[in-house]
């Protein structure tokens, strides 16, 4: 295999990047120095997740190329039904699903074991997501029954091939033990073959894949941390597909390489300013509203690039199940901002501090926001700290304003709970990422979670978003979409609008064309 790689590398060099019709190996460039954890129930980083959806299936999946749970379709489960109260779900498991290697056919027992593992905090990073599950039982060789203790919004979302929903093969996990972290065994179109430290993970086609053997026979998922080198390797033809920097200039520059597709994908990462409502002067709603009026979203979108960014108005990103645009809006109005400050007794302006990461992309944004706020006499003092330090300090409740950028599973409940729900407030034992100490919509968030009438549930989520904007717990700024580029002769077989796992869907349908 090593030799084959070598010769293909040499051939690439000789052909000087020109793609031949025989091309069967897909080289992907990912922005990371090395692999982290390839155990799907413990992989939390973009580079790791981006690889895992080529290897694993879920009970269901979001149609490849889409990122919204509106596109859920069968995967390992052929069909499913739920009881009237939405508390009991029965899944029929497809026959003929084979685990990679010699680990045999996937059974209902495997599915049960995998989901039990996903909800066990000792073995999974995502156990929290499965709190509402009461029991999981195999009720037949190919039937699994899941009983909930309370209804869950968009339950099927928990069983797509993402995070804990990835189904692992019991025998493989038990046989490999600790080695499973770097030797993932799933049921998907591609199988793990080899890992070269700091260089690549090589996958090979799963000829037994239940949807049919993949056209592409090999994937080299390369770890290339330097943006410039990734671009150059793409330009030289050594890579077919690369992870892009999330900015307009990158998209424009890479599009100039002949034969290149630049693709903008959902989900967007939403950049917001969380305002700490317990710290003066931000405990005064007039000051928070002044900040909201001072931020010019259109200017920010212009700055980040109109092709890759869209303005945000709601505390939940656009396109998430439950999102509403019908929220109180704060138009850009410097005079109004100054007026509000004066009313609050700060006619001479205010000073607000923020602890901020040194990540260049986020830093550029906060510096523009700093300039916009200055026009309204709001002086933003930025303390720059290294990224891991930033994450630690904002969780210690040290920053008045927290600039945060995140994408979550696209259901309103997830975003609302993690960022705007009282018990998630930083500094408390149940803390997640509620930096603003927002608790104004707790009742609606809780009610929506267990509401069985979907229309009423949407209403409750909308009310929650309205209340949060009314109180200005947060100032939404913009959403930054995922950017990728690949060669035009690579046909993924689907239209790509998004990907929950943040990397383009490479399935059995992907192929090289001449």
């Amino acid at each position, binding site marked *: 295999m090593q030799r084959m790689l070598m010769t293909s590398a040499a051939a690439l060099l000789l052909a000087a990047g020109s793609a031949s019709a025989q091309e069967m190996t897909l080289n992907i460039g990912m922005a990371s120095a090395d692999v982290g*954890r390839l155990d799907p129930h413990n992989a939390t980083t973009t580079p790791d997740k981006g690889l895992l959806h080529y290897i694993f299936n879920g009970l269901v999946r979001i149609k490849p190329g889409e990122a919204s749970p509106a596109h859920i379709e069968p995967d390992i489960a052929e069909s499913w039904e739920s009881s009237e109260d939405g508390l009991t779900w029965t899944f029929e498991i497809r026959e003929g699903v084979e685990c990679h290697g010699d680990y045999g056919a996937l059974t209902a027992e495997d599915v049960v074991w995998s989901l039990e593992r996903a909800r066990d905090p000792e073995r999974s990073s995502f*156990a*929290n997501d499965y709190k509402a599950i009461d029991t999981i039982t195999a009720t037949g060789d190919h039937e699994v029954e899941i009983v909930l203790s309370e209804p869950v919004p968009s339950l099927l979302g928990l069983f797509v091939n993402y995070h804990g929903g990835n189904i692992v093969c019991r025998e493989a996990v038990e046989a490999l033990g600790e080695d499973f972290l770097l030797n993932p065994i799933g049921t998907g179109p591609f199988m793990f073959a080899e890992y070269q430290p700091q260089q690549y993970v090589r996958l090979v086609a799963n000829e037994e894949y239940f949807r049919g053997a993949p056209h592409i026979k090999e994937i080299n998922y390369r770890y290339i941390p330097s943006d410039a080198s990734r671009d150059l390797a793409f330009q030289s033809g050594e890579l077919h597909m690369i992870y892009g920097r999330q900015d307009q200039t990158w998209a424009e520059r890479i599009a100039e390489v002949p034969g290149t597709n630049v693709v903008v994908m959902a989900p967007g990462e939403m950049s917001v300013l969380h305002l700490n409502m317990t710290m003066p002067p931000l405990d005064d709603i007039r000051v928070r509203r002044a900040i909201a009026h001072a931020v010019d979203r259109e200017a920010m979108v212009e700055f980040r690039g109109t092709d890759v960014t869209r303005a945000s108005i709601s505390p939940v990103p656009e396109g998430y199940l439950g999102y509403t645009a019908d929220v109180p809006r704060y138009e850009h109005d410097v005079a109004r901002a100054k007026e509000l400050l004066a009313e609050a007794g700060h006619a001479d302006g205010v000073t607000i501090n923020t602890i901020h990461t040194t990540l260049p992309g986020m830093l550029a944004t906060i510096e523009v926001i700093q300039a916009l706020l200055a026009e309204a006499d709001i002086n933003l003092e930025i303390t720059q700290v290294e990224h891991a330090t930033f994450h*630690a300090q904002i*969780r210690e409740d040290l920053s008045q304003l927290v600039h945060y950028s*995140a994408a979550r599973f696209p259901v309103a409940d997830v975003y609302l709970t993690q960022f705007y729900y009282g018990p998630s407030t930083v500094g408390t034992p*149940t*803390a997640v990422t509620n930096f603003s100490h927002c608790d104004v919509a707790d009742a609606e968030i809780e009610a929506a979670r267990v509401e069985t009438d979907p229309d009423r549930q949407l209403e409750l989520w909308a009310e929650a978003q309205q209340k949060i904007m009314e109180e200005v717990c947060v100032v939404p700024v913009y959403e930054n979409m995922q950017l990728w580029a690949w060669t035009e002769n690579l046909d993924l077989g689907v239209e790509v609008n998004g990907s929950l796992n943040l990397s383009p869907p490479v399935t059995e349908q992907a192929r090289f064309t001449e």
Partner: protein
Amino acid sequence: MTAFILKRVGFAVFTLFAVLTLVFFIVRVLPGDPAMVILGDQASMAAIKALRARLGLDQPLPVQYVTFMAGVFTGDWGTSMVTGRPVIAEILNVLPATIELTVVSLILGAAIGIPLGIWAAINRNAIPDYVTRLGSLLGLSFPAFVSAIILLLVFAIQLRWFPVISSGQGETFGARVLDLALPAVNLGLIMAAYITRVTRSSMLEVLGQDFVRTARAKGVPWGVIVWRHCLRNALIPVVTVVGLYLGILIGNSVLTEIVFNRPGLGKLIVGALNQRDYTMLQGMMVIYTLIVVAVNLLTDLSYGLIDPRVKYK
């Protein structure tokens, strides 16, 4: 000689001990928590606390320190907090790649730097001297990652002689050379700049000494004077500088490895730092300290080879 080496090794152990203690506390003083980095930004506080306990980070610092020290001196360097793999295996995996790159760059640097330095010295204040001095100044002031990108643009993109991704894994000798060429040239040029300047000034000093005039007066050919008599006398400062600058070379190799996508200690340490992988960082510091201590010892010992008058006491 043996007593000298023993004394130096004793010093080395002490240095290592001091560095380890320093590293142990510095990585823990840094804000940022490995458990948080591993679990990602959606993890609950309870999960983070549980992982901290599993990693032993909830123990009092003195307890962690004793466990760590006992481990280092019994050969157990622990496992990476992020990947769970043994630290020593991870390091040994990529160490050969870094050593290969550093040694080849050093040789390249000496092969270019020493002749250039001599050439500049014997043509003092003439055109060759100016050219060499300007060139070496450029070499010193160019950041490694900028020269790396320029090399890639010219030789990998325009001329297509070399790959952008240097795997460092070629099976044949030719493939290895192809992979190593650009990164080694990048580092070698920086090294050459240092060596040129030291060689030049050291040679100038020797060229002005009485024995050189005597040799010329009795008709020894100029080439023999320069290469045999002067160079050997001028070499000690050069060797010292090469030893000292090895640290700079390692620093630049971090950037070079990243831009050329070569596996190596550089990529490992950057990853470990970003993820607050304490055990990995500690292991890497042990290795770096060992390398620097070993190179210093070798430098000292080489003086005796170059100059028989040097005695070890």
